C-alpha cells in the first residue's frame, strides 16, 4: 500500500517535471504531428523519412505523459517495471535526436497495460475512448488501406476459379440401366444371392479355398466412402469425394439416385440387408430392408464394432428372403489406425474374420436356399506401414478381393496359398476395384450399372457353358462402356465409317486407342466368322476395347480446365501484387526481418514443387524456426544493455537463457509427433513415449490443466469466490478429457494412477453434457470479456481473459496426448513476451509458430491425418456446420492458439507503423500462388492426386480458415476488447 502511494506520488512529480520541461515543446510538436498524420493517413505510404518517425516517437511520449497523468489521478496502481521504464523515457527521447532508430525501439518496449489505448486519430479529445479505440483498431487492421482488404476478397475468388478447373466434373448418366429384350434372355444368372463382406482395410493377405482370389487395385484416395462408391457403381470416384467422406452427410455423396448393383437388385424387387459400417446407410438411404449400422466413433473399439455385425450372421443365414447381404467389418481398420499392421491384435482379428467366412461357407454348402450364393470377401482399401490409409502406397491400394462359392470349383482353378507377393503387395492377379461391379452384374444376371467403368473379370467367363453366352457378357460390358465413353467424349465419333481408316497409325491408348479397338470389333463383326469361332476371335477384341475404354475413362477423372487454372492463378497473383507494396515498405523498414521473411516465402514457394518436401513440410518449418530463433538470439543478445540493472528479471540478466528455453521447448515440440511420410514410423513422444510412461503423461496433463486453471483464475476480474468458477470449469474440462481418454485411447490409462482414481469415482455423466457444460462456461467468459471492456478501471485486460478461455477450449478440442504442448506454448510465449519484439518480428514469429505447431499436433499434408476424434464434442447428432468447425479447431488448435497469442504479444502502438494483416495476407497469397502453380505445372505428375491435391486442399483451409477467419476476423474481433 505504502509502496503504491509512494509510487504514485513520485510518479506525479515526475509527470509534472516532464510537463514543465518537455511540455511546451511537445505541444507544438503534437500540433505539427497531427497535421503530418493527417497527411500520412490520407496517403498511407509508410516511407516516411526517418525524421518523421522520430517525431512520431516523441509525439507518443507527449500523449503518453498525459495518459500517465490521468492514470495517476484515478489512483491506479502501477507496477514498478513500467514505472522504471517510463522514468527512463524522456532522456532517451532527447537522445533520439541523434539516434532516430531508438524511437522505434522505445515504442515497442513501451508497453502500458493500463489506461486506454491512445491513438492519433483521436483528434477531438472529448471523443469517447472506447469508440476511438475501436475505430483505431479497425484502422489498424485496414491501415494498409484497401489493398489488403481487396487482396483478401480476391483470395476466395482465386480459390474458386482454380478449384473449378482443378477438380473436374464428370458427366454422369442418370437413371438405371435396363436390359433390352435380346439381352434379357441371353446370359442366364449364375448366382442368385450375394454376400458382400467388406473387411475395412483388409490388405492382400488371403488364403484361398474354393475361391478365386485377386488383388484389387484401389485407386487413390483410399478412404472408405470413395472406395465403396467404386465397388458399387463401378466408377472411379473423383478426388472431391474425399472431402465428402469427411462431410459425411452431404447429399451429393448420396448414391440413392445413382445406378449401382444394389439399385439394380432393388429394382428387380429383391431384398437387401446390411450390417456394419453405417457409411452404407448414408450412401444408400432406404435401400436396405434390415440393417444395423455401426458408427466408427471410437477407433479404440476393436471388438464391439465387429461383434455388432457377426451377431446377425446366423440369423440372416437362416433367412431366405434376401438376395444380397452386406457386411462391413471395421475392427481391422481400427486396429490398423491404432497400432499399425503388425499389431498383436491383428492375428486374432484375422482369425475372427476367418471364422466368420467359415461359418458362411459351411452354411452355403449345407443350406438349400444358399445353394447358389456367391460370397465376395474384400477390403475396401489397405493400410500403409503406419496403419493409416488415404494415400497411394502399395499397401494402401492393394486390398484383398476373394470370390467364394462351392460353385466356383467348377472352374477348376487351383490357387496356391499362401503365396509370396509378385511385386509390392501384389499377391494374386490384379484387377481394378471397379471390375467388381460388372462381374457381379454378370454373375447375378443384371444389367451393368450405367456409369460403371469396370471390365468383367474374364476368369468368370467359364461359369457359362455356351460361348454365345460368354460373348454376350463381354458384348454387354463393351456396349455399356461405349455408352459412357460416348457421353464423355461427345465430339469423338464412334461410327463405323469414320474409324476404319485412321486406325492403323493411331496409338494404343487414349481416346484414339479406344476408337481403334472399337473399330476392330466392328470389323470382326462385319466379317463372316464361323459361329463356333466367334468367341475366340471377337472376345479378345471386346476385352481389348473394354480395357482401353476403362483406361481412358479413368484418366478423365483428371481432365483439367486449364484456362480456369490460369484464371485462378492470375486472380491470386493480383492479390499478391496488391499487398506487395505495403509489404515492401514494411520490409524496407526493418530490413533484417524483411530479408528473412523474403527468404522464407521464396523457400516455401519453391518447396511446393517437390513432392517430398510437400510430404515433409513440417521439416521446413522446424528448420526455418531454428534459423529464426538464431536471429532472435542475436537480436536479443545485442539489444541487451551490457550493464543490466539489478532489478531486471532473470531473463534480462542471462539473455542466453531466453533462446535456450525457446530452443529446448522447440526441440521437444518437434519430437512430439513424427508426421509426414519418410519418418512417420519413427518413435515420438505422443504415440511411443506416453503409452509406455503413463505416469509422466498424466503428470504433464494435470500440470497443464493446473496451469490453464490458474491463468483463467487470474484473468477473471472478480473477487475470489466468483473467480473459483474458473477452477470448476477447468476441473470439469479435465474430467471430460479423462473420460474421453478412457473411451478413445484406453491404452493410456493402463497401470496409471488415474485409472485407479476413476474406479473410485462414483459419478458418471455423458460425455456430450460434460462438453456442453465446459463450452457453455467458456462462452460466458468470452461474453464477459466483451462486457468488462466497457467498464473502465478493470485491471485485467479482457484480451487475456479471452485468450485463457480459448486456451481451455483448444485443450478440449485436442487429443489428450497433445495437451501438454500447451504448456510448452506457454513457456515460449513467456519468453517471447520478455524479449519485447518489434511488431514485424512478432508477426513473423507467430506466423512460423502457427505453421510449426500445426505439424507438432500431428497434422500433415495427407488427407489421412485429419483428426476427427474431437469433432463431436458436445454434439449429440450430426451437424455439418458444428462438426466442421470443431474439426477445424481440433486440427488447427496450435495455429489458433498462436493467432490469439500474437494479439497479446504485439506491442501496442500507433497505427500505420506495422500491419500484421498485410504481411500474413502476402504470405498466404504467395503460398496459394505457388501451390496453384505447382498443381498446374505438375498436373501430369504421378503424385498429383496423392500429394499436390491434398496440399492444395490444406492450403485452402489455411487461407480461408486460418488466415481469413482466425487471424484477420479474429484480430478484428479482439480489437473490440
Amino acid at each position, binding site marked *: 500500500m505504502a509502496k503504491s502511494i509512494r509510487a504514485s506520488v513520485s510518479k506525479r512529480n515526475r509527470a509534472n517535471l516532464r510537463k514543465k520541461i518537455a511540455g511546451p515543446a511537445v505541444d507544438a510538436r503534437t500540433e505539427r504531428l497531427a497535421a503530418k498524420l493527417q497527411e500520412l493517413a490520407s496517403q498511407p505510404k509508410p516511407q516516411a523519412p526517418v525524421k518523421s518517425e522520430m517525431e512520431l516517437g516523441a509525439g507518443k511520449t507527449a500523449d503518453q505523459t498525459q495518459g500517465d497523468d490521468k492514470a495517476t489521478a484515478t489512483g491506479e496502481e502501477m507496477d514498478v517495471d513500467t514505472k522504471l521504464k517510463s522514468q527512463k523515457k524522456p532522456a532517451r527521447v532527447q537522445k533520439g535526436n541523434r539516434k532516430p532508430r531508438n524511437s522505434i525501439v522505445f515504442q515497442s518496449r513501451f508497453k502500458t497495460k493500463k489506461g486506454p489505448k491512445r491513438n492519433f486519430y483521436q483528434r477531438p479529445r472529448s471523443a469517447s475512448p472506447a469508440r476511438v479505440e475501436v475505430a483505431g483498431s479497425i484502422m489498424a487492421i485496414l491501415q494498409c488501406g484497401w489493398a489488403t482488404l481487396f487482396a483478401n476478397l480476391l483470395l476466395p475468388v482465386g480459390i474458386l476459379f482454380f478449384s473449378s478447373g482443378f477438380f473436374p466434373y464428370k458427366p454422369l448418366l442418370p437413371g438405371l440401366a435396363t436390359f433390352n429384350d435380346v439381352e434379357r434372355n441371353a446370359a442366364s444368372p449364375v448366382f442368385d444371392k450375394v454376400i458382400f463382406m467388406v473387411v475395412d482395410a483388409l490388405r492382400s493377405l488371403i488364403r484361398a479355398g474354393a475361391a478365386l482370389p485377386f488383388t484389387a487395385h484401389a485407386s487413390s484416395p483410399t478412404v472408405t466412402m470413395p472406395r465403396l462408391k467404386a465397388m458399387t457403381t463401378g466408377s472411379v470416384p473423383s478426388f472431391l469425394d474425399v472431402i465428402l467422406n469427411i462431410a459425411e452427410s452431404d447429399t451429393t455423396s448420396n448414391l440413392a439416385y445413382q445406378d449401382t448393383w444394389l439399385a439394380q437388385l432393388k429394382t428387380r424387387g429383391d431384398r437387401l440387408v446390411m450390417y456394419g459400417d453405417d457409411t452404407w446407410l448414408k450412401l444408400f438411404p432406404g435401400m436396405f430392408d434390415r440393417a444395423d449400422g455401426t458408427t466408427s466413433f471410437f477407433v479404440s473399439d476393436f471388438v464391439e464394432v465387429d461383434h455388432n455385425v457377426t451377431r446377425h450372421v446366423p440369423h440372416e443365414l437362416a433367412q431366405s428372403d434376401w438376395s444380397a447381404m452386406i457386411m462391413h467389418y471395421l475392427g481391422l481398420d481400427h486396429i490398423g489406425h491404432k497400432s499399425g499392421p503388425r499389431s498383436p491384435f491383428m492375428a486374432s482379428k484375422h482369425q475372427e474374420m476367418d471364422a466368420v467366412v467359415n461359418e458362411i461357407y459351411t452354411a452355403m454348402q449345407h443350406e438349400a436356399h444358399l445353394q447358389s450364393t456367391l460370397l465376395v470377401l474384400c477390403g475396401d482399401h489397405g493400410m500403409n506401414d503406419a496403419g493409416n490409409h488415404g494415400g497411394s502406397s502399395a499397401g494402401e491400394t492393394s486390398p484383398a478381393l476373394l470370390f467364394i462359392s462351392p460353385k466356383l470349383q467348377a472352374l477348376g482353378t487351383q490357387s496356391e496359398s499362401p503365396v509370396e507377393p509378385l511385386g509390392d503387395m501384389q499377391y494374386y492377379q490384379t484387377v481394378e476395384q471397379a471390375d467388381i461391379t460388372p462381374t457381379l452384374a454378370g454373375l447375378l444376371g443384371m444389367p451393368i450399372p450405367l456409369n460403371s467403368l469396370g471390365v468383367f473379370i474374364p476368369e468368370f467367363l467359364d461359369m457359362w457353358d455356351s460361348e454365345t453366352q460368354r460373348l454376350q457378357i463381354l458384348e454387354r460390358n463393351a456396349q455399356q462402356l461405349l455408352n459412357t465413353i460416348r457421353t464423355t467424349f461427345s465430339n469423338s465419333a464412334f461410327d463405323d465409317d469414320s474409324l476404319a481408316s485412321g486406325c492403323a497409325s493411331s496409338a494404343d491408348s487414349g481416346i484414339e486407342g479406344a476408337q481403334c479397338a472399337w473399330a476392330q470389333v466392328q470389323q470382326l463383326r462385319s466379317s463372316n466368322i464361323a459361329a463356333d469361332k466367334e468367341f475366340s476371335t471377337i472376345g479378345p477384341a471386346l476385352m481389348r476395347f473394354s480395357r482401353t475404354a476403362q483406361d481412358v475413362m479413368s484418366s478423365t477423372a483428371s481432365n483439367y480446365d486449364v484456362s480456369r487454372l490460369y484464371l485462378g492463378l492470375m486472380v491470386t497473383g493480383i492479390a499478391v501484387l496488391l499487398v506487395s507494396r505495403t509489404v515492401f515498405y514494411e520490409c524496407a523498414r526493418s530490413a533484417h526481418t524483411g*530479408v528473412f521473411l523474403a*527468404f522464407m516465402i521464396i523457400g516455401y514457394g519453391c518447396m511446393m514443387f517437390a*513432392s*517430398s518436401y510437400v510430404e515433409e513440410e513440417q521439416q521446413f518449418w522446424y528448420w526455418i524456426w531454428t534459423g529464426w530463433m538464431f*536471429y532472435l538470439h542475436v537480436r536479443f*543478445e545485442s539489444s541487451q544493455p551490457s550493464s543490466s540493472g539489478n532489478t531486471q528479471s532473470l531473463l534480462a540478466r542471462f539473455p542466453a537463457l531466453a533462446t535456450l528455453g525457446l530452443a*529446448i521447448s522447440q526441440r521437444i515440440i518437434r519430437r512430439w509427433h513424427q508426421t509426414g511420410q519418410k519418418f512417420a514410423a519413427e518413435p515420438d513422444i505422443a504415440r511411443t513415449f506416453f503409452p509406455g510412461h503413463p505416469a509422466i503423461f498424466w503428470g504433464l496433463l494435470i500440470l497443464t490443466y493446473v496451469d490453464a486453471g490458474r491463468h483463467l483464475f487470474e484473468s477473471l476480474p472478480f473477487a475470489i469466490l466468483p473467480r473459483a468458477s474458473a477452477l470448476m470449469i477447468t476441473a470439469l474440462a479435465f474430467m471430460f478429457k479423462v473420460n474421453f481418454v478412457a473411451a478413445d485411447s484406453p491404452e493410456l490409462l493402463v497401470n496409471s494412477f488415474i485409472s485407479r482414481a476413476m474406479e473410485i469415482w462414483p459419478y458418471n455423466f455423458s460425455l456430450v453434457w460434460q462438453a456442453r457444460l465446459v463450452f457453455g462456461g467458456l462462452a460466458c467468459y468470452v461474453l464477459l470479456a466483451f462486457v468488462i471492456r466497457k467498464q473502465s478501471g478493470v485491471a485485467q485486460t479482457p484480451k487475456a481473459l479471452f485468450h485463457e478461455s480459448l486456451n481451455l477450449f483448444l485443450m478440449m478440442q485436442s487429443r489428450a496426448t497433445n495437451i501438454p504442448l500447451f504448456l510448452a506454448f506457454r513457456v515460449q510465449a513467456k519468453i517471447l513476451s520478455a524479449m519485447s519484439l518489434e511488431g514485424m518480428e512478432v508477426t513473423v514469429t507467430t506466423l512460423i509458430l502457427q505453421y510449426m505447431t500445426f505439424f507438432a499436433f500431428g497434422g500433415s499434408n495427407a488427407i489421412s491425418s485429419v483428426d476427427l476424434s474431437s469433432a463431436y464434442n458436445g454434439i449429440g447428432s450430426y451437424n455439418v456446420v458444428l462438426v466442421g468447425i470443431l474439426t477445424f479447431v481440433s486440427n488447427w488448435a496450435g495455429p489458433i492458439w498462436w493467432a490469439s497469442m500474437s494479439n497479446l504479444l504485439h506491442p501496442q502502438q500507433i497505427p500505420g507503423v506495422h500491419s500484421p494483416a498485410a504481411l500474413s495476407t502476402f504470405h498466404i497469397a504467395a503460398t496459394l500462388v505457388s501451390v496453384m502453380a505447382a498443381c498446374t505445372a505438375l498436373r501430369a505428375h504421378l503424385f498429383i492426386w496423392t500429394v499436390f491435391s491434398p496440399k492444395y486442399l490444406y492450403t485452402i483451409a489455411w487461407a480461408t480458415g486460418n488466415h481469413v477467419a482466425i487471424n484477420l476476423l479474429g484480430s478484428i474481433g479482439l480489437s473490440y476488447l
Partner: protein
Amino acid sequence: MASATSSSAMIPPGSPIQAPAEKPGAPPINILPSKLSQVYSYVHPVLLLTLCAVRFEKLVADPVQELLRDLPWLALLQISYVMLCLPPAGSTQATETVSDGEEKKKAAQRSPSSPSMTLRPGKPGYRRKHQSGKLDLAGALAKIMPAFLSLAISSLIATPILAVLLVLFGAPLTTHNPETVLCAAHMALLSATALVYAHGVDGHIWKEVWGIARPVDAVWGSALGTGLGAWFGAIPIPLDWDRPWQAFPITILVGAYVGHALGSLVSRAPLLYGKRIQFAPVGTEEAEKKTN
C-alpha cells in the same frame, strides 16, 4: 548484397543496433602477411574440401568409423593452418592494434569500397612480429603451445557445446549419438580452433562470438560459415531419393565443410572484411552467396 551494405553502411551513425559496437571490440584478425601464410590460407580450404571429397564414399559407408579416422587429419590440418597463417592470441597484436582497429573501422565507414587500403597501417606490426618469429625456433615453439591448447579447448569444450546445439537444431537425441558427437567434434575443430588460437579465452570476444557480433574476418567468417553450412546442409535430408548419403550426419557435415571453406574465403573479400554482421545472419548468407 543490398542488405549487407545497408546494414553496414547505413547503420553507423549511432543507431541502437550499433550500440554494442561503441565499446572498442577486438579488431578483425588478419592472415599473416608472409607469402607462405597468404598462399596456404587459400590452399587450406581447398585441402579441407579435398579431404571431404576423397573420404566421402567411406563416410557414407560407415560414418562413425570414418569420422573418427578423419579426426586426427583434420586436427593436423587445422593446427598447421593456425600456426602458419594466424597470429596467436595474447601476442603484441592485442595491445598494439586496438587503436589501429578503431581507425580502420572509421576509415572503412568513410569509404567502404576500399578497406584494403586501410589495412596497411596494421601490416608493419605483423611483419615485425613475424620476422622476429622467423629468426629463431623459439618463435615457432611459442606458436605450438597455443595451437595445441586451442586444439584441446575446441575439442574438449566446443564439442559438447556444439553437440548440444546440434541436438537443439534438430539432430536426433535418442539415436545416432556417436554420429552427433563426432559431427560436433568436426565442426568444433573447423570453427573453434582458429577462434581460440587467435583470441584465446578473452571473455569479451567470446561474448561477441556468442552474440554473432564479431567483425568479419577469415577466422570468424569460417566459423560462422561452418554453422550456416551445417544449417543449410539439413535441406536434402527429407527428400525421398532414399540415397545412403541422406543419412543424418553426412549432409550436415559436408555443409559445414563447404560453409567453412566459403566463409573463410568470402569473409576476406574487401566488401565484407571488417564489417560487423548484426541482426541478419541469413541476410549475410545471401549476400555471401551472391558475391560468389
